[in-house]
């Protein structure tokens, strides 16, 4: 019973993390039909910037509680700078090309950003432990968890709820959904699709960076975290259905619980379990769990 509880809680925590890293990817795909491999390096950029800024803040002797704000500020800045640069500077010229070509373009951007990170921050790992340890821990039964994991869970819920609210209750959000469904019709109706793309990509970049910033206190920030994370994000996004936010949430929960069970009962299968779930879901529902039936265009 105790182990089951541990599996559930660990699974939910991991699911929150998965959701945060995957939501930006699925948003960008849904609107722009681009599978953004560069999302991985935006995540890494967010982690590194958060580690640098929050680390600097703490080293200067300011209130440690402010480091949380610094992490988010760093992530938002990364999104606000990298997003427009990539979208306006490069992707804008590639719209209309084949989906796979766009994937390769984002892969090229990923490679460039990976080296940019190595050049800027070096290859040594960074440690930002203060935000993680500052909040202490709490007990559930005889299991102890850091309070930071609650923060992670809270942020995931907050991000999910905010996005759903923006997309369904605000006027701009509904215009975005219109672009998701039919780009040409939306443009014919007078929606500025170019602006929607710009805003979406920047928002997706910010979400990716926020994911990285929130993860930075839990890991050692080093080269390669982008590559590891992007495959996990792919798995979650593809399982849930590309472009679907509820799909990403459900997929995150599914993958999180499966992986948590694997870690507790058969640790050597934990990496295998995630991709196995992805393969199984793709076999049973080829377009993911929450996929829209599309008419085939001849």
């Amino acid at each position, binding site marked *: 019973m105790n182990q089951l509880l541990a599996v559930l809680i660990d699974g939910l925590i991991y699911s929150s993390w998965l959701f945060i890293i995957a939501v930006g990817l699925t948003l960008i795909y849904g609107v722009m039909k681009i599978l953004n491999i560069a999302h991985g390096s935006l995540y890494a950029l967010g982690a590194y910037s958060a580690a640098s800024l929050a680390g600097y803040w703490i080293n200067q002797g300011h209130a440690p509680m402010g480091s949380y704000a610094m992490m988010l500020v760093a992530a938002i800045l990364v999104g606000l700078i990298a997003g427009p640069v990539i979208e306006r500077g490069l992707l804008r010229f590639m719209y209309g090309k084949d989906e796979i070509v766009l994937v390769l373009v984002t892969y090229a951007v990923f490679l460039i950003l990976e080296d940019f990170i190595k050049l800027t921050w070096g290859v040594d790992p960074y440690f930002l432990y203060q935000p993680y340890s500052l909040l202490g821990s709490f007990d559930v039964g005889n299991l102890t968890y850091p309070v930071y994991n609650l923060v992670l869970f809270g942020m995931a819920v907050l991000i999910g709820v905010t996005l759903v609210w923006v997309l369904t209750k605000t006027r701009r959000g509904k215009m975005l959904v219109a672009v998701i469904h039919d780009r040409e019709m939306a443009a014919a109706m007078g929606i500025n699709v170019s602006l929607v793309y710009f805003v979406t990509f920047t928002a997706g970049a910010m979400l990716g960076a926020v994911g990285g910033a929130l993860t930075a206190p839990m890991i050692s920030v080093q080269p390669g975290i982008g590559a590891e994370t992007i495959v996990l994000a792919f798995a979650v996004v593809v399982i849930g259905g590309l472009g679907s936010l509820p799909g990403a949430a459900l997929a995150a929960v599914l993958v999180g619980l499966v992986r948590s069970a694997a870690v507790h009962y058969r640790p050597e299968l934990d990496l295998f379990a995630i991709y196995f779930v992805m393969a199984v879901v*793709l076999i049973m529902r080829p377009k993911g769990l929450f996929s829209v039936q599309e008419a085939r265009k001849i």
Partner: protein
Amino acid sequence: MKRDFTIRTLVGVLIALLLAGPLLPRWAMFLITVSLCYGTVVLGMMLLMRTGVVSFGHGLYYCLGAYASGTLDVLFGVSDIAVMLLAAVAVTGVVSALLGLLLRKYRDIFFAMLSLAFSMILYGLLLKTSALGSSDGFNVAAKTLFGIRIAGTEFERYLIFAVTVLIAFVAAVCMHKYLASHMGRLAGAIRDNELRVEYMGASVRNTIHVNYVMSAVLAGLGGALAAVSVGHIDPEMSYWTTSGEFVFVAILAGTGNVLAPFLGAFIFETIRSFAYEYSPNTWQMALGTTMLLVIMFLPGGLWSLFTRMRRAT
């Protein structure tokens, strides 16, 4: 009627490499061997791209081929290159035949993602298998070739080089003949318009399946040859970034001709070796920038430069 110089060029390159081999410095021979291994894998990728599907998971077969040939020594005590290559072909053939049954129904992003998932499954399995060395991998030593002992002799490097060159040559010639055949031309038709191919009575799925198996076997051969010449294999061969490199070389080279993958692989390996040496923190950036430039200005890959020059004359 455009004259086809491909076979002649291939024979010429074969003879040149075999004759020049003993005269080349060790590092050059090694560089060419590794590029030919990569080139064989990319030859398979080229076939798939001509069929209209891009696989982001060919590292799976590259790794399977390498591990199939590498574990022969551990399991059966066999370290003959010929047997290793046969094992690689057999294992990758069987696995791709099975996986191909599933993959042939998918296209575009989903084909790429599903193939990526399978390659990451193998990566995850190998990473956690301490018997196979986990993330360190293990060393592979080929001791005989068709029963003739080569390890430790002065001809070892040259024989491995020669075997690689010969296999690459045979693969290229067979692929060239295949692409000119009826089924090979179907690949291009599928890329253009699948529905019309079905209306004409050919089976799209069967063709994709056959092409997939062929490309997987080529990748397995490349992996086995790489294992023999490099001497070390690790789970990283199945990681998605390795598959990404194959895709990159395939884009760089273009799908115009069977010579293109080998040319592209050679250029890629050369740049990578020298970039690692002089500037290890910027070579990925150079790779990414090159890929962007090729996509934007040379969508047909480097080979389209040759066809353009020929047309100009």
